[in-house]
């Protein structure tokens, strides 16, 4: 267990400079955007005279140099203050925290679907490399990987929501349904079925291909031949020896894909009107609320770092070689 803890500490230490670069980059983009917070305020409040504008700039610290403002931004971030959203007239942190759980639910469910079903189908394909099933699944997954998630979402809506009326069109739950407990969970599950499918199906192909490629590699190794020589049943060789040893690359991919999935959820949430972080991002774009948009970027960077950390821990627990040869300091 100390091995995993050491790994966590090392990862967190390298995450600090990375996060700093992201923050400076976000600040740079904020500087590049035309107009500042005062302009945005004036645009929403209907204007003001030159003296009031100058006073506002001074009060909000906008008359200082870029370096001083960057330092102030960093200091505020250190206190967990992401700034003020002009378009929503609320602290950015509150808005983001309100929306984050919906996105995490969507991402978590889509990850479970793509990883679970993807690696299961990968095992089916990799059980007999070169067989008909293998070729069918490999080509099929390539085709699936070429489908844009938002378009898949629209097609699913056309078929399942509009033509067949099986599933709700949009939203995360029935508004003011008064449902509690299990009934509410079922309602949310019904609403999330299509978004999760459209987000998860794309990545399913990725895990399938990784699993299959890994298994094809393991099949060539001596211990598999030894297992076959010992007379183990084929099913047992496939599951307990080949698949098990091919599982690590897909798990590594879980961490790498967390960023990509978070990006994908922006469009999917917009298609299905799910009040999550992604939809907030496109709302921020529409309202030209750059501070809010960059707050979302920062929070997603933190989410990605944490997701990768989780994957690292899982990896260390699964593979005893990981982290064991690192200095003990």
């Amino acid at each position, binding site marked *: 267990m100390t091995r995993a803890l050491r790994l966590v500490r090392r990862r967190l230490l*390298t995450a600090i*400079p*990375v*996060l700093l*670069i*992201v923050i400076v*980059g*976000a600040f740079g*983009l*904020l500087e*590049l*955007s035309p107009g500042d917070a005062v302009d945005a305020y004036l645009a929403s409040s209907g204007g003001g005279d030159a003296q009031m504008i100058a006073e506002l700039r001074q009060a909000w610290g906008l008359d200082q140099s870029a370096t001083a403002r960057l330092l102030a931004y960093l200091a505020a971030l250190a206190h967990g203050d992401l700034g003020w959203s002009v378009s929503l007239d609320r602290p950015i942190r509150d808005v983001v925290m309100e929306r984050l759980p919906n996105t995490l639910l969507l991402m978590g469910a889509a990850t479970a679907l793509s990883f679970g079903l993807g690696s299961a189908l990968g095992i089916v394909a990799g059980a007999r490399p070169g067989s008909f099933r293998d070729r069918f699944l490999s080509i099929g997954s*390539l*085709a699936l*990987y*070429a*489908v*844009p*998630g*938002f*378009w898949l979402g*629209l*097609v699913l*809506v*056309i078929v399942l929501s*509009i033509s067949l009326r099986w599933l709700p069109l949009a939203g995360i739950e029935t508004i003011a349904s008064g449902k509690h407990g299990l009934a509410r969970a079922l309602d949310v599950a019904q609403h999330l079925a299509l978004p999760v499918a459209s987000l998860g199906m794309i990545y399913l192909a990725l895990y399938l291909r990784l699993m299959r490629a890994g298994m094809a590699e393991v099949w060539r190794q001596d211990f598999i031949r030894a297992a076959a020589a010992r007379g183990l049943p084929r099913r047992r060789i496939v599951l307990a020896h080949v698949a098990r040893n091919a599982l690590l690359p897909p798990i590594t991919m879980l961490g790498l894909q967390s*960023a*990509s999935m*978070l*990006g*994908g959820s*922006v*469009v999917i949430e*917009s298609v299905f009107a799910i009040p999550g972080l992604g939809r907030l*991002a*496109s709302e*921020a*774009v*529409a309202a*030209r609320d*750059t501070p809010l*948009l*960059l707050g*979302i*970027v920062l929070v*997603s*960077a933190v989410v*990605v*770092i944490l997701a990768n950390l989780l994957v690292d821990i899982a990896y260390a627990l699964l593979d005893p070689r990981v982290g064991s040869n690192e200095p003990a300091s």
Partner: protein
Amino acid sequence: MTMFRHFLRTPEGRAGGLILALIALAALAAPVLFPGDPLAIAAQPMLHPFQNAAVPLGTDRLGRDVLAELAHGTRTSLLVGLAAAGAAVLVGAAVGTAAGFAGGIVDEALMRLTEAFQTVPAFLLALAFVSVIGPSLATVIVAIALSAWTQPARIARAEVLSIRERDYVAAARAIGMHPAEIALREVLPNALPPVLTLASVIVANAILIEAALSFLGLGDPNRVTWGGMIAEGRVVLRAAPWLSVIPGIALVLTVLGVYLAGEGAVEAMARRRGAP
């Protein structure tokens, strides 16, 4: 040329090559077949496909010719996909070579920068960039390249790390070649092939990100984009689902063609290495 023959001998290469050739043809022929503005009104709005010979794929909500839009959209998709991927591979290879060749603090700093870019979701980064700078063809290309250069950079660095220990690099150093010249003339050309294997995935991703950006209304407003067509059709999803479905099929075919061609190229390279 042998490379191309190997490529055509793989089933993936044949299928991908055929699809891409057709799509490239559509992109080249679009201004000839459909001269004039594809965003101009051509006929009465919301005509079904396959009913009017003048507008074979029907018309959209505003009466624009869907087939003309589709053909002109091919140009945007291919242009953005190729330009963004080209820029991403160039920048990535340069950064990766610099990091791997310089080593030490430069390497450390460049790799932290790469990691920072990988930590921010690519699509969110592109979205933020386009929304801050303003949507135009150039910003969309830069935004996509900005979010795609990290993977080629990592691969180029790994290649350079192994190449710089080879004998011919030591020989170049021994004859007194300038380090920058060694990096550019000896190391980079040999580090490039593994990066290029990645090119098909980067092009495909660039096309998909462009589509998603224009679907959210952040494409160049003066050009037809498939993503924009899907978003436009979405408004009348109940009455005219084909308006969203048709451009999506074009998108899937293009991306599939790129993937298949990429697989074929990788296989052809492996075969050439295997053949005497």
